[in-house]
């Protein structure tokens, strides 16, 4: 445990404002919904975020072309992305892959990621708590299958944990020969998942003392940034619902004047504030590599996902019939919230993990 600054610093406020402005100009619910009916071009949005604000370089050191910022800043960006559901590979590339590569010390690739010239994804299920190698190093190339991977459809570098004769190796694969990426329908089409099949795929080995550790650090950072994203999703759902119940009139009164609705929103507001505190604390301690960070991460991921889902569900319910329509964006947030709840492990899994960390064994 440690005392941390729980509110936005000036730098964080500026970053938040810049990201919010760009996303509000470029991300529109109708365009997001179109992504459910067919592919949409998401490249320009990602290029704008990386080129104009440099979000891909936040977690890259300055000498490698990054901003040398920290997890708190990454969580701020994730929160704004959650607020708008911006369909960009920030989490997959700028957080998970970047943190793993920083551990591995692949500075050339880091520099390309930081500039936005390259985009990477770790080939592991979006629902995985830890990386489990499903690929083997064969003389002909990497072979194996990884399912439900996020961000890989936009990646030009795929990071793979591969079993070799003398342990687990970290490899970089370029989409192309020997690589099949199938992006089918996903619950959340603002962050679709893909199945990746490697059949004698050519690869470059990245030297790292402990490949699994490097990748798991990436996933842990992803889980913390995700908590920020979940707060953003919850905030949008809450703000939108609050606005709606103030103007929707039934029985001659705004429905927000009924206690049944006021009390639900008061409770939800309390929950979201708590989620925000948990997410902020987790980002702060992970960023400082503090000894409390495993506990903080597990706490944030045990809580924030559930709150985001609750907020999205309340958004649908309190909008009544309109919340059930394709036209209203509530469903886009519901799908994102529900998929996010599973990402990097669901709250049950994080609570199980937490039990071991705080000496509360199951039996």
């Amino acid at each position: 445990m440690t005392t941390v600054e729980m509110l936005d610093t000036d730098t964080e406020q500026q970053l938040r404002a810049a990201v919010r402005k760009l996303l509000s100009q470029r991300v529109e619910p109708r365009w997001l919904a179109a992504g459910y009916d067919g592919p949409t071009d998401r490249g320009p949005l990602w290029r704008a975020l990386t080129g104009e604000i440099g979000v891909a370089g936040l977690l890259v050191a300055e000498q490698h072309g990054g901003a040398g910022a920290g997890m708190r800043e990454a969580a701020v960006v994730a929160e704004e992305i959650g607020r708008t559901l911006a369909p960009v590979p920030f989490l997959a590339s700028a957080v998970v892959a970047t943190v793993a590569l920083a551990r591995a010390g692949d500075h050339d690739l880091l520099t390309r990621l930081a500039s936005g010239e390259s985009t990477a994804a770790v080939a592991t299920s979006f629902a995985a708590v830890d990386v489990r190698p499903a690929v083997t190093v064969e003389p002909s190339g990497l072979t194996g299958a990884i399912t439900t991977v996020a961000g890989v459809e936009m990646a030009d570098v795929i990071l793979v944990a591969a079993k070799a004769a003398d342990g687990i190796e970290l490899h970089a694969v370029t989409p192309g020969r020997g690589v099949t990426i199938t992006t089918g329908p996903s619950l959340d089409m603002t962050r679709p998942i893909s199945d990746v099949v490697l059949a004698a795929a050519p690869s470059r080995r990245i030297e790292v003392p402990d490949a699994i550790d490097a990748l798991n650090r990436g996933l842990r950072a992803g889980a913390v940034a995700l908590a920020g994203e979940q707060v953003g999703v919850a905030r949008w759902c809450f703000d939108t619902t609050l606005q709606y119940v103030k103007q929707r009139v039934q029985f001659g009164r705004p429905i927000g004047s009924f206690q049944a609705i006021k009390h639900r929103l008061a409770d939800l507001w309390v929950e979201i504030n708590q989620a925000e505190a948990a997410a902020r604390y987790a980002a702060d301690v992970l960023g400082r590599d503090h000894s409390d960070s495993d506990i903080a991460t597990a706490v944030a991921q045990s809580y924030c996902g559930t709150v985001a889902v609750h907020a999205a569900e309340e958004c649908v319910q309190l909008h009544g019939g309109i919340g059930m329509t394709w036209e209203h964006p509530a469903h886009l947030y519901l799908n994102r919230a529900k998929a996010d709840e599973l990402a990097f492990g669901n709250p049950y899994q994080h609570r199980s993990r937490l039990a071991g960390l705080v000496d509360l064994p199951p039996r």
Partner: protein
Amino acid sequence: MAEDVTADLLRRIQDLLDSVDLDSIGREDFLAARYDAGLAWVRFPVGFGGLAMPAEYQPLVETRFQEAGAPGQLPGRNGIGRGMAAPTIAAVGTDAQRTRLLRPLWTGAEEYCQLFSEPGAGSDLAAVATRAVRDGDTWIVNGQKVWTSSAHTARRAILVARTDIDAPKHRGLTYFICDMTDPGIDVRPLRQITGEAEFNEVFLTDVRIPDTDRIGAVGEGWRVATLTLNNERVAIGGGVPREQGMIGKVAQMWREHPELRDPAMHDQLMAYWVEAEVARLAAERLGQRLAAGQPGPEGSAMKLTFARLAQAISGFEVQLAGADGLRYDDWTMRRPDSVDFTGRGPGYRYLRAKGNSIEGGTSEILRNLIAERVLGLPPEQRVDKDVSWKDVRR
């Protein structure tokens, strides 16, 4: 916090510590010396126990004195005095009142209780019917108050009474300091579901209060009282270290009794642990937001969560205790000097926690407060708002 200000504060603390013999000085004397040195409530005005400094310096003062092994306030005692009466007297009282009341309040020589709630004025506190009628320089008070903890030990009370029955309810109230040794005060224990009588009923019959013990203007009682209610909510919902309170009790039982463990209960335990931890972090965040400012309606959120978790976790604890959950430590009628929500056994904790969502504002009222004051949702219909108090149904 500015460095030179901190240095000056630390020097004052050291000067005080150097001037007394900690081994021989009594608690009250030491606290009196702290008051005189302006080191009681540093945010209070100079000459009234403070140094007119921002409240954020207070924790530093407490820590320093604690480290030095100096005697502090008795825990669990005079919460109404320190949490409600003192800030109100400091904010609204005259210099004469501050001089006379704050020092003995701080040292614990004079403890306070709260004469606000009545049988007919619970959530609707502004409906109080206890009357105060002016008789020259004195007020004559008649009525009945309830839910008064420490009424049998307190030397003084903060009292809200109706001074104008023609005005609408919020505008006819006045705030007083009441002498609990007045012969017209009759305190009767009110036994509660835990078996003990932590609270009292207080009957006031021709109680005489000098006008010099009126705090704030006549008819301003509601505004003055609301000031301290906000303080109470923050006091009840304030931040605590990890694994404190109910969750600490349950975690301890889980660790010490492997034979009680059950897989379904384990997930529930972890869910509560997480909730208690995020509530703690949210309290910390709120504390930082309010560090310099006044307590606002956001404090209600903390109290809401605190009450919900205390009830849920204490209920869980009774089940976790297994067959021993069927036992109860003691039903003997007592009048405890202080309250400890997490004291005694699981059964007591479970029953006592039921009060957490009622005392200091029911959870339902707090949700209204958040919805209306923070979220800007339309207020409840208030049929009695602009009606003369004497014409309101009750």
